[in-house]
C-alpha cells in the first residue's frame, strides 16, 4: 500500500499570497494513499527539509510529493533530503505550484484548486514510481576547445595549466581571432599584438595542448565526460612536419592579388600564405580556391622552391577521432560589413570602412604601418566621421540588441586618429554612450575632453559622394533634431557584431541551444553564464553575445574552472532517467521486434542492437538495446516504438498516464 507524504510550500509569500496552502494541504490529506500532509513557509530551508525527513521516518512513507517551485532548482534538494531519511530519492516528486500556478493566477479559490490539482496528479504519479539507482560514468580528462581567439586561448591555457590535456580546434590557419587584428585596445591603449602574441606562442609550446588549425568539428556524439568528436582537418597542401616556416614559397607565388582576410581587404596576399607575421603556427597553407595549380593544373612554383619538399598538392582532408570529457565553445563573433547598409552606399564607397579596417589602418603592423590613410587614394583624411550603432539597436535591420563593444572602440578610434593626425577632426555620431566598466567612462570622456572628438547625438540618415568628399547627413537630436551635414574624407562604421558564420550548424552538431541571433545560449543568464544546456559543454567569449576582451577572458577562465571542476572527478553520477527496452520471459524475451527504427530516430545515438542467444550461442532474436550512458531521456524512441516496447524510467507510460487520468477525473 502506498504511504504518500505531501508537503506544501509557501515559498515565503510567493505561493501563499495567492494560494491557500493550508487548504491544499488539508485537501491532499484526504487523497487515497496520502498518510501525511502539511504546509510550511520554506520547505527548502533546513527546518523544512527536517519536516520531510521526520515524516518519512515517523510515517514510514513510500513516496513524497513536494508542492513548491520549479523542480529545476530544488528537485535535487528534496531528493537528497529523502535519501538522507532512507527513502530512495526517485520516490520524491515535485509539483510546481509557483511558476505554474501562484505566479500566473490571481488570489482565489480557483487558484487554490489548481494548486491542489497539480499536487493530486503528482500523488498519482508517485504511487507508480519505483526506486532507481543513479548511473555512474567515467570521465575522460581531455577538453576540446573550439575556436582559438583570445577566449579559446585563455580557456586552453587555464585547463592545460590545471594539468589536463587540451585539443584546440581553430578554423583559420592561425589562432588569434579578432584580437590579433586590433591595433591598440581600450581602455588602456596597450598594443593588442604585444599582449596576445606571447599567449599564442605559449599555446603552441604547451606540452598539454594539441593544436589543430584549418580544422572544424565534423560531428559529435556522447555526453558529459565521454564525448566522441570527429575533427575535420582541412588539407593545407603543406606538410607541417617537413615545413620549417622559412617562407620562401610565399615570396615567389605568382598569384599575388588575393585580398587578405587578415588585413580586411586593405592589402593583398599570395595563394600560399601565412595570414600574418605573428601567426601560430607560423607555417604557410595553400588557398586552393585561388592557387594557380588547382585552378589550371600548372604552376607548382612553390614546390620547386621549397627546400624541404613540404608542399603536397595531393594532401587530403583528414578526419581525426578524439575522445573528450568536456567541450568549450569559443568561436567568437563577426561584424557586419559595410555592404549591409544601403543608406551608407552598400559598400561601394571605398572610404566608408568598418571598424576592423580602421584597426588595420591604425595598426603598426598594418598595410600603412599605422599611418591613417584613406583606402581610395592614400591621402591622410582631415575629417573622419565615426558612426556608432551601425545596424545595432535597429529592429528594422533585424538586430535589436546592443553590440556592446562599439561605443568603446569608437571612442578608441577617435582617439587613435587624433593621436596620429593632430590637425584632423573626429566626429562621432552616437545614440547613447554606453561606457559601463572599470575605467571605461573615464576613457570616453578623455576622447571628448582631451582629444577633442566631436560627439553628435543622432543617427546618420545617408552618405553620398560629392567632389571627392563623403557627405554625411544626420540630425543632432540634442538640438531638437537640427540637421547636420559633414563633408568627411573617411567614414568608419561601427557595424553590428553578429554571431559567427556556421554557428547554427555547430550548435546543432553539439546539441546546444542558441538565441534568435544564433549566439549560443547559456544555461541560466545569471547563475550559469558559462554553461550550456548540454552538460559538459561550456561557453567562452563572444560566441555567446558581443563581449570585449576582459569579458571574453573572464568567461574563458570561468569555463576553464568549470572544466577543471568536472575533471576533478573520476566518475560522474547521472540521473537514471533513461529509456529501457522491455524484457520478458521466453519465448517472447521482449516485445521489441528488432525493426531498428528507433536506432535511427535517437538524437543521441544511444540505441544499438542486442542478440538474445540460446545456450548454444545461437541467436534467437535481435532486439534494440539502449546504452544508459548515452541516453538523455528525451523520450523520442518511447513515443516512436510502435509495439510500445520502450519505456522511460521515472517517466513511464504508466506514470504519465496516471497523472493525466488524475487531472481528467476531476
Amino acid at each position, binding site marked *: 500500500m502506498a504511504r504518500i507524504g505531501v508537503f506544501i510550500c509557501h515559498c515565503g509569500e510567493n505561493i501563499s499570497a495567492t494560494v491557500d496552502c493550508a487548504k491544499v494541504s488539508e485537501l491532499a490529506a484526504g487523497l487515497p494513499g496520502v498518510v501525511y500532509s502539511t504546509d510550511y513557509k520554506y520547505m527548502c530551508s533546513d527546518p523544512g527539509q527536517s519536516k520531510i525527513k521526520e515524516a518519512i521516518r515517523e510515517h514510514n512513507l513510500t513516496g513524497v510529493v513536494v508542492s513548491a517551485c520549479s523542480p529545476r532548482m530544488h528537485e535535487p534538494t528534496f531528493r537528497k533530503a529523502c535519501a538522507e531519511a532512507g527513502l530512495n530519492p526517485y520516490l520524491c516528486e515535485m509539483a510546481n505550484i509557483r511558476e505554474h500556478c501562484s505566479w500566473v493566477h490571481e488570489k482565489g479559490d480557483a487558484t487554490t484548486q489548481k494548486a491542489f490539482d497539480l499536487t493530486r496528479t503528482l500523488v498519482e504519479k508517485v504511487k507508480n514510481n519505483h526506486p532507481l539507482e543513479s548511473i555512474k560514468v567515467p570521465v575522460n580528462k581531455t577538453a576540446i576547445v573550439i575556436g582559438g581567439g583570445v577566449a579559446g586561448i585563455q580557456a586552453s591555457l587555464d585547463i592545460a595549466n590545471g594539468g589536463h590535456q587540451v585539443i584546440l580546434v581553430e578554423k583559420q590557419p592561425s589562432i588569434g581571432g579578432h584580437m590579433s587584428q586590433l591595433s591598440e585596445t581600450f581602455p588602456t591603449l596597450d598594443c593588442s599584438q604585444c599582449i596576445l602574441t606571447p599567449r599564442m606562442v605559449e599555446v603552441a609550446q604547451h606540452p598539454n595542448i594539441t593544436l589543430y588549425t584549418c580544422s572544424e568539428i565534423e560531428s559529435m556524439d556522447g555526453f558529459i565526460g565521454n564525448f566522441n568528436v570527429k575533427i575535420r582537418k582541412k588539407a593545407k597542401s603543406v606538410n607541417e612536419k617537413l615545413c620549417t616556416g622559412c617562407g620562401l614559397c610565399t615570396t615567389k607565388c605568382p598569384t599575388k592579388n588575393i585580398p587578405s582576410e587578415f588585413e580586411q581587404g586593405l592589402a593583398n596576399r599570395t595563394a600560399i600564405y601565412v595570414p600574418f607575421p605573428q601567426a601560430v603556427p607560423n607555417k604557410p597553407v595553400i588557398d586552393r580556391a585561388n592557387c594557380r595549380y588547382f585552378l589550371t593544373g600548372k604552376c607548382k612554383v612553390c614546390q620547386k622552391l621549397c627546400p624541404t619538399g613540404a608542399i603536397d598538392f595531393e594532401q587530403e582532408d583528414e578526419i581525426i577521432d578524439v575522445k573528450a570529457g568536456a567541450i568549450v565553445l569559443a568561436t567568437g563573433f563577426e561584424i557586419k560589413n559595410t555592404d549591409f547598409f544601403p543608406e551608407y552606399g552598400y559598400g561601394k564607397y571605398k572610404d566608408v570602412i568598418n571598424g576592423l579596417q580602421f584597426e588595420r589602418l591604425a595598426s603598426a603592423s598594418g598595410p600603412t604601418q599605422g599611418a591613417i590613410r584613406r583606402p581610395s587614394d592614400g591621402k591622410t583624411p582631415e575629417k573622419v566621421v565615426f558612426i556608432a550603432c551601425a545596424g545595432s539597436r535597429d529592429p528594422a535591420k533585424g538586430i535589436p540588441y546592443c553590440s556592446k563593444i562599439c561605443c568603446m572602440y569608437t571612442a578608441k578610434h577617435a582617439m587613435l586618429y587624433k593621436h596620429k593626425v593632430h590637425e584632423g577632426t573626429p566626429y562621432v555620431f552616437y545614440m547613447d554612450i554606453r561606457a559601463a566598466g572599470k575605467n571605461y567612462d573615464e576613457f570616453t570622456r578623455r576622447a571628448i575632453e582631451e582629444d577633442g572628438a566631436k560627439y553628435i547625438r543622432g543617427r546618420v540618415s545617408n552618405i553620398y559622394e560629392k567632389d571627392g568628399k563623403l557627405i554625411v547627413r544626420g540630425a543632432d537630436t540634442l538640438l531638437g533634431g537640427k540637421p547636420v551635414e559633414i563633408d568627411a574624407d573617411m567614414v568608419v562604421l561601427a557595424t553590428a557584431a553578429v554571431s559567427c558564420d556556421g554557428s547554427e*550548424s555547430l550548435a*546543432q*552538431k553539439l*546539441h546546444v541551444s542558441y538565441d534568435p541571433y544564433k549566439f549560443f545560449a547559456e544555461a541560466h543568464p545569471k547563475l550559469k553564464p558559462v554553461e550550456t544546456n548540454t552538460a559538459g559543454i561550456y561557453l567562452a567569449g563572444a560566441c555567446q553575445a558581443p563581449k570585449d576582451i576582459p569579458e571574453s577572458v573572464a568567461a574563458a577562465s570561468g569555463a576553464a574552472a568549470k572544466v577543471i571542476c568536472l575533471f576533478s572527478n573520476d566518475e560522474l553520477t547521472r540521473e537514471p532517467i533513461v529509456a529501457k527496452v522491455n524484457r520478458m520471459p521466453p519465448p*517472447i524475451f521482449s*516485445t521489441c*521486434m*528488432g*525493426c*531498428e*527504427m*528507433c536506432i*535511427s*530516430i*535517437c*538524437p543521441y545515438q544511444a540505441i544499438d542492437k542486442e542478440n538474445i542467444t540460446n545456450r548454444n550461442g545461437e541467436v534467437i532474436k*535481435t532486439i534494440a538495446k539502449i546504452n544508459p550512458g548515452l541516453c538523455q531521456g528525451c523520450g*523520442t524512441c518511447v513515443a*516512436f516504438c*510502435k*509495439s*510500445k*516496447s520502450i519505456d522511460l524510467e521515472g517517466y513511464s*507510460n*504508466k506514470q504519465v*498516464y*496516471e497523472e493525466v487520468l488524475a487531472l481528467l477525473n476531476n
Partner: protein
Amino acid sequence: MGAINEIAARLLETGEAKVVIGYGEGSFGSVRPAFARNQEEAEKLIYDKRCTQNLAMYVYKKEISPLRKLAIVANVSTLRGIIRLASENQIKNGDIITLYINELGEVIECKALSEIEICLAEITPEIKPEDKELIDKLDAMTPQERWNFWISEMESCIKCYACRQACPLCYCTQCAVEVNQPQWIPVAANTSGNLEWHITRAMHLSGRCVECGQCGEACPVNIPIHLLPIKLAEEIKNIYGTVSGMKIQESNTLSTFKPDDKENFIG
C-alpha cells in the same frame, strides 16, 4: 501447366523452398491464398488478374515463418511489402524467393533482395483509380467535412482488427492496442475508442505503408480505412520524395533524426 506451377514444383523438389505461398481457386469464382508444400499442391497454384492480395503478410506468420526458406508468388504490392519487411529486419536476404509476375505475365525469379529492388526500380507505383477518386473528394472537403466523413465511417468499425491482420507491416507480437498497462486505446468499439485505434494505426504505418490497400479490402464493414495510410504515403512522397518499400536503404523517412531538419511544418 503454367510457368508458376513448374517453378513452384522445381523449388519444392530441389528443396530450395519448403513452401510456396501463392494463389489458388476459391469458392464461387474467388481466389484464395494457397500454400504449396508438395508437387500436387504446386500444380493447383494459379495466377491471374484476380490475384491482387498482398501475400507478404504470410511470411512472418508463426505457422509459416519456421518453414523458411520460402517462395512467394508476388505482385508489385507483395514485392514492396517484402522490401519493407526486409528494411525493418523481419526478413533476411536468402530467406525468401520471390516469383514476381510482371505486366507481360513473365515470371521473374528473385533469389536475392537486391534482385527485387532491381524489378521495383522499373516500376512507378500508382494508386488505384477508385481510391484516387475518393482521396480527391476528401481533399476537396473542408476539415470539418472530412472529420465528419471519418467519424461516420468509423462509427461502424467493430474492432475486429482484420485490417491489422491483413497488413504486411503489422507484424508486432504485441500490438499497441493490446498494451493495457496503461490502456492507451480503449477496448470498446465506440466512437472515441475507434478513433484512437485508427489514428494510432495510421501513425504507425505512416512512412511504412506500401499502399497495397489490403486493410481496406479486409474490412468486413467496408470502411475505406486504407486511405489513411495511403494518403500519408502520398504526403511523405511530396514532402521528402521517398516511397516506402522500394529500396531497403533510405526508407526510414519519418524515423531518422537529422539535426538540420527544418520544423517548417509547425505553425
